[in-house]
């Protein structure tokens, strides 16, 4: 805000206040001091106000920074600042073995860990040429966990999105349901997030006893509970007033910016990689691709709601398909040797496996030692593998030079690409609509910055 000379701040907060800079007067707004800011701006002859939202604003989905130029209540320009969560995971992967990479990639988009792991492992398996050898049971478990993960991720999107619009009940419902899904994850992998459960060649361990019953029970309960959220928000006048026609982005805009996921499907294009470029046998499952034609936040909300129902259908089909069998490839030169078990102190090597390598088989000990210290070699080459994550196309481009470590791994994260649409969705709208628009993109900053 430029041009104000005579504004002094008289509020009680010593951290807040106004100071002069070369760009004009800068106000630090900390809450409950709005009046003094309004007075200051009213006295100024400058129409343009620049508002810095974030990076620690509760409505920006993590450490996202939005710089909004306002003319009154209208947003005239939006700039997006990212990078606050840059963790260098892509670089770190180059210094770890192929299997250790899973531990890193699961932490990128922390709301959809199973998608990160599966995309990475599918790419590594393609380079190894063992895609066909991955046991059926491992693939079914992967699909089942990914679909449960889609539900838990969409629930966070609905919960935080609802909360940002003031619908606190939506948040309570969303997190309540998500807890049920996380209980399943904890039962299966030992962890609520950052599982590192999907490994090149299969999964880390088989489903524990009772998991199938627990999942079936959870599916029934979720289906019942989803009705609460649907009854609360679908067609709700207040909710629709905040989301209908907000965050508009049409098909042409999506194509030019590379937007995928619910944002793209809200334009009516049934683009879902599970159908268009099937992986993990998705072509054999029965489910529908949900689309809307409204191109707005409300349409994206409806898509997420319906997709959760479709995911439940897939999980049920997975439960029917689960047949006893191995969950890791046969090849002992690739299969991670650890047979994990959950003990009283968490997940670790099972005692049976330790007895086997230490007392029974010299060969098993050698494989264990080689794989754990050095890892397996992956033939030189490059592949691109994409999966449909809750936010859109999550792709991984893996380059190998034939060594035991990745030469280069690039993640095409949907949050990163979709966030580019922020300006197109927000400019020309009101300040309050920025929140609804960003919430409908559902960015996860861990995935954006990597």
């Amino acid at each position: 805000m430029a041009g104000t000379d005579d504004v002094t701040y008289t509020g009680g907060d010593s951290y807040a206040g106004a100071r002069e800079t070369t760009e004009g007067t800068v106000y630090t707004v900390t809450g409950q001091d709005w009046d003094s800011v309004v007075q200051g701006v009213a006295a100024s002859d400058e129409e343009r106000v620049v508002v810095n939202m974030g990076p620690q604003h509760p409505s920006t989905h993590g450490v996202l920074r939005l710089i909004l130029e306002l003319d009154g209540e209208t947003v005239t320009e939006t700039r997006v600042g990212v990078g606050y969560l840059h963790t260098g995971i892509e670089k770190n992967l180059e210094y770890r073995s192929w299997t250790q990479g899973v531990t890193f990639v699961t932490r990128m988009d922390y709301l959809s860990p199973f998608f990160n792991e599966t995309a990475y492992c599918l790419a590594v398996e393609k380079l190894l040429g063992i895609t066909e050898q991955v046991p059926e049971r491992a693939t079914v478990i992967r699909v089942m966990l990914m679909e449960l993960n889609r539900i838990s991720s969409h629930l966070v999107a609905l919960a935080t999105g609802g909360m940002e619009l003031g619908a606190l009940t939506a948040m309570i419902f969303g997190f309540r349901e998500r807890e049920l899904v996380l209980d399943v994850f904890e039962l299966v992998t030992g962890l609520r997030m950052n599982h590192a459960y999907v490994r090149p060649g299969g999964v880390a361990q088989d489903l524990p006893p009772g998991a199938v019953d627990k999942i079936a029970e959870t599916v029934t309960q979720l289906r019942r509970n989803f009705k609460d959220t649907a009854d609360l928000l679908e067609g709700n006048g207040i909710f629709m007033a905040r989301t209908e026609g907000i965050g508009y982005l049409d098909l042409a805009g999506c194509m030019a910016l590379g937007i995928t996921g619910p944002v793209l499907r809200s334009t009516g294009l049934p683009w879902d990689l599970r159908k268009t470029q099937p992986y993990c046998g998705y072509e054999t499952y029965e489910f529908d691709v949900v689309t809307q034609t409204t191109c707005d936040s409300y349409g994206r909300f409806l898509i997420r709601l319906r997709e959760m129902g479709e995911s439940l259908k897939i999980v049920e089909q997975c439960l029917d398909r689960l047949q006893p069998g191995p969950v890791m490839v046969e090849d002992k030169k690739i299969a991670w040797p650890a047979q994990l078990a959950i003990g009283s102190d968490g997940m670790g090597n099972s005692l049976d496996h330790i007895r086997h390598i230490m007392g029974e088989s010299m060969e098993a000990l050698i494989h264990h030692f080689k794989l754990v210290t050095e890892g397996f070699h992956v033939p030189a080459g490059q592949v691109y593998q994409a999966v449909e994550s809750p936010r859109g196309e999550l792709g991984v481009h893996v380059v190998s030079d034939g060594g035991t470590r990745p030469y280069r791994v690039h993640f095409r994260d949907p949050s990163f690409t979709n966030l580019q649409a922020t300006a197109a969705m927000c400019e020309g709208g009101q300040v309050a609509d920025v929140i609804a628009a960003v919430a409908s993109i559902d960015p996860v900053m861990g995935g954006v910055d990597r």
Partner: protein
Amino acid sequence: MTARRDLGERLCGLLGASARVEELDGEVTVDVPLEAWLAALVAARDVLGLTFFDWLSATDELDLGFGVVCHLVDPRTADRLLVRTAVPRDRPELPSATGVYRGADWHERETTDLFGVVFAGHPRPGPLVLPQGFAGHPLRKEFVLEARTARPWPGSVEPGRTTGRPLPRPLGVPPEAGP
């Protein structure tokens, strides 16, 4: 011949003899010379119908420079193609693709941050994922990840106490790196 391979051959045909197709593990990549980079993207978009810009990134190819690669998709058929060009290490610069695909914007800025490859004519250049003034380009191979060797492990039981043994080095960190 797969549809994808056919797409690659057609793009090569449009660009002349300087481009070539590579197929490995079912992945079709078209290598184009640096001066044909934008022409290749325009041809892919307008003639081949690859209107969906997916992503752009790079690989450090050491003496061969940087391999800048971008992934394009035909939204009608779901056919896809990797288009790649080599940028010399001593002068890592290529024209920005933002005029062809608007979505290339952030991908190019990220690549500039992490590899130091400059995209000439980018409308809003500047750091995206790295802090202002960060020295070096982390994804270049000469940028060695030595954080673990330079800093004591923060999770030891007794902070500040050393065992007297050198810290184990992460895989790939050369012995001369670090303190």
